[in-house]
């Protein structure tokens, strides 16, 4: 990217924002030039979200100023931001499910929206121009996650947009969809729009962005040109020097089947749910099987039927030789199942309860209850042990579960399950939202459990993670499971095709992801 003679599109000078108990942004400086794709890199909790909320007018900074096209400005609220030409695509979509695409976009445009008819035409033409065709008359709840993201982007594009902010846009997409998105973004930048691309995925930043600003613990820890760096050096900027960042684990193949799913069909009661179609899967003792997939393709339903929240026909699920389809979750736990659900607060842990009580919730089977009475000192010792072994950052076992950051709570939940020495562990998104250091610790714990002879099933959207820890790998799409292959024989491209529902094509390599 050449130096542009015109003033930067957006300049941040000394932005600071204090929240109770944490300094989210500390003296942040940032320049984004017109037509530049600028990455904002950082781990969870580094202050990325706060910073973009400042730019979008959702949060007022305590100190510092913003310059827009060289002029100081105070962004009052999101409506003001949109008037300036700032558009934002949220990680959790801000769409209204019962309204149509056109109605959703009309809402965001305010009084400029005009009549719905012409607007729908505009949506159709803009979305086609940027290669993201969507039907303006469909209601949001009928759209896939990828399509919803398109709606969010098109919503920004139908306005006169000068700066597009995307918050972790690729986390919900298949590798192929990511490529399509990047083509769109490059086209936009080519037309002069600035793009602020928030991510922690280094290879994507390297492939797409002209410049990067790295945040760590609320401060700018470095700036770089991603094309000239390698991912390790950028990762060092993100996590600091002392954290080990990557490693590889030896792959193993187990022998004795411990978890067996045969011909599992399940009709979902949820209108937005997915029906499971003829699922067959075996997980052996001493191996990790990874299931990739874009959210909402049947993972929830599959996990619920394995955990016992959703009962199914008795002989469709076996733990070793025991049919368990009709058993309740705690009967399955008694057999030796441990389960790490996707939602930490609400299913993995009770938000208002202390860590001790939460430890008790699934640990009650391993001697924390005697003669119907809770052995509190044992439960407390158990909680302390989890906190110490898994380096959970918390004031103590009395802390409420919802006072912990997502990553710390996840370490606690994983620790709670693993320390009960399960024979089968099922984990959904084990490191979602967890920083690199903690993720490495969780991966090591999973590998250790595997080596002790447990059968482990990991469902995740993070493909890199699955390739790192899985011994065999496959994908789920629209309720159907792909064939499961030994990881070394698979590839990201092949897995991507499987995530898109193409299970049969030969494993030919074609156009590697940039």
């Amino acid at each position, binding site marked *: 990217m050449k130096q542009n003679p015109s003033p930067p599109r957006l300049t941040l000078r000394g932005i600071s924002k204090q929240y109770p108990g944490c300094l989210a942004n500390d003296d942040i400086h940032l320049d984004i030039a017109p037509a530049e794709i600028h990455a904002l890199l950082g781990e969870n909790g580094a202050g990325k979200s706060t910073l973009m*909320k400042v730019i979008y007018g*959702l949060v007022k900074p305590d100190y510092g100023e913003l310059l827009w096209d060289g002029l100081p400005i105070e962004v009052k609220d999101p409506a003001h931001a949109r008037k300036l030409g700032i558009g934002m695509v*949220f990680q959790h*979509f801000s769409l209204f*499910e019962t*309204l149509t695409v056109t109605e959703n976009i009309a809402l965001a445009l305010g009084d400029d*929206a005009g009549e719905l008819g012409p607007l729908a035409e505009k949506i159709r033409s803009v979305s086609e121009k940027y290669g993201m065709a969507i039907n303006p008359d469909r209601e949001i709840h009928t759209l896939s996650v990828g399509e919803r993201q398109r709606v969010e982007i098109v919503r920004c594009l139908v306005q006169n947009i000068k700066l597009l902010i995307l918050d972790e846009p690729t986390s919900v997409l298949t590798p192929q969809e990511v490529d399509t998105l990047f083509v769109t973004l490059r086209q936009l930048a080519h037309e002069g729009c600035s793009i602020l691309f928030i991510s922690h995925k280094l290879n994507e930043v390297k492939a797409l962005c002209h410049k990067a600003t790295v945040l760590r613990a609320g401060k700018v820890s470095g700036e770089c040109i991603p094309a000239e760096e390698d991912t390790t050096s950028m990762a060092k900027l993100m996590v600091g020097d002392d954290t080990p960042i990557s490693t590889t684990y030896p792959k193993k193949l187990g022998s004795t089947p411990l978890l067996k799913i045969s011909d599992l069909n399940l009709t979902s*009661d949820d209108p937005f749910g997915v029906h499971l179609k003829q699922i067959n899967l075996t997980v052996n003792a001493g191996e990790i099987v990874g299931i990739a997939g874009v959210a909402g393709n049947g993972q929830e339903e599959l996990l619920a039927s394995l955990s016992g929240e959703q009962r199914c026909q008795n002989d469709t699920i076996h733990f070793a030789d025991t049919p368990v389809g009709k058993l309740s979750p705690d009967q399955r736990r008694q057999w030796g199942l441990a389960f790490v659900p996707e939602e930490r607060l609400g299913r993995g842990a009770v938000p208002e309860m202390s860590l001790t009580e939460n430890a008790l919730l699934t640990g009650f089977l391993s001697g924390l209850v005697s003669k119907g009475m809770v052995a509190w000192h044992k439960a407390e010792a158990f909680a302390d042990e989890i906190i110490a072994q898994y380096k959970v950052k918390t004031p103590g076992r009395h802390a409420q579960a919802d006072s912990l950051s997502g990553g710390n709570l996840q370490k606690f939940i994983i620790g709670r399950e693993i320390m009960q020495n399960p024979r089968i562990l099922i984990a959904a998104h084990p490191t979602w939202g967890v920083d690199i250091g903690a993720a490495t610790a969780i991966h090591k714990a999973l590998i250790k459990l595997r080596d002790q002879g447990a059968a482990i099933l990991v469902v995740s959207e993070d493909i890199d993670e699955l390739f790192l820890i899985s011994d065999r790998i496959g994908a789920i799409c629209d309720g159907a499971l792909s064939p499961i292959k030994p990881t070394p024989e698979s590839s990201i491209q092949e897995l991507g095709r499987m995530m898109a529902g193409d299970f049969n094509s030969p494993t030919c390599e074609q156009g590697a992801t940039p």
Partner: protein
Amino acid sequence: MDIDLITNILYAMIRTGTPLLIVALGELICEKSGVLNLGQEGMMLMGAVIGFIVTLLSGSLLLGFMLAIIAGVLMSLIFGLITMELSANQVATGLALTIFGTGLSAFIGSDYVGKPIEGLDPIFISGLTDLPIIGRMLFGQDLVVYLSFILFAAAYWFVNYSRPGLVLKAVGENPHAANAIGLPVFKTRYLAIMFGGAMAGLAGGYLSLAYTPLWAENMTAGRGWIALALVVFASWKVGRVLLGAWLFGLASILHLVFQGLGFSVSPNLLAILPYLATVVVLVILSSNQARSRLVAPMSLGNPFYAKG
């Protein structure tokens, strides 16, 4: 059954259904914004007592209706302040508002029980009122009934076709997303709550100034609750509120109908019909999960906290 009886039943059905229609329209708009206000009964009673006293003292029905509406709005603002500014639980606050309104209206109105006023007269429209069967029903009513037709049409257009209506639905479905794209969540909810209060006040005034022109303690007799059931019965659709209000109106005069036909059925037994109908509708709605999740405003009853 003779023509006269049918004409009278239809006339009474609309007349009885009118206060229900008015309150239910207010509650529906309020619930569309995601706010569940169970204080209808209390707001209606305050509208009824204030409207009655003002008319008795001033002799002006117009002034009475206006102050009835204002009383309803003020009551709803109490609800608004507590649930919006202090983020209190909507259900508990609404129930408290009903209890408060019941007590306060009885206290204010204790000296005026049984005093007579000149109620609202029907307005006949020449030519139309004399039509057989539907003439009296649609064109032989008083001004507030005609107003309720207009309110219904306006609410129908507002919710289904106007941009502010779209904002209302968006706020009721997902206030956080609405806030993120810059929609005024607080303002929308306040206006919806106030509209609910105004309608409850008007309906209360209608009861004490037109329907039975006198004040009696607790004279709304559960109509606020019926209206709440009515919104569910209508599955949050404006069009069905009209149908439901008139049906519920019919149900509450059924004992007169039966008397006219020579049966005698306890009016208490017949009074359960609206609730029974509501339960049946609820069962039908929830039998299909796909439908049930999409009918009610998704964040109904959830407080909204502005972040940052």
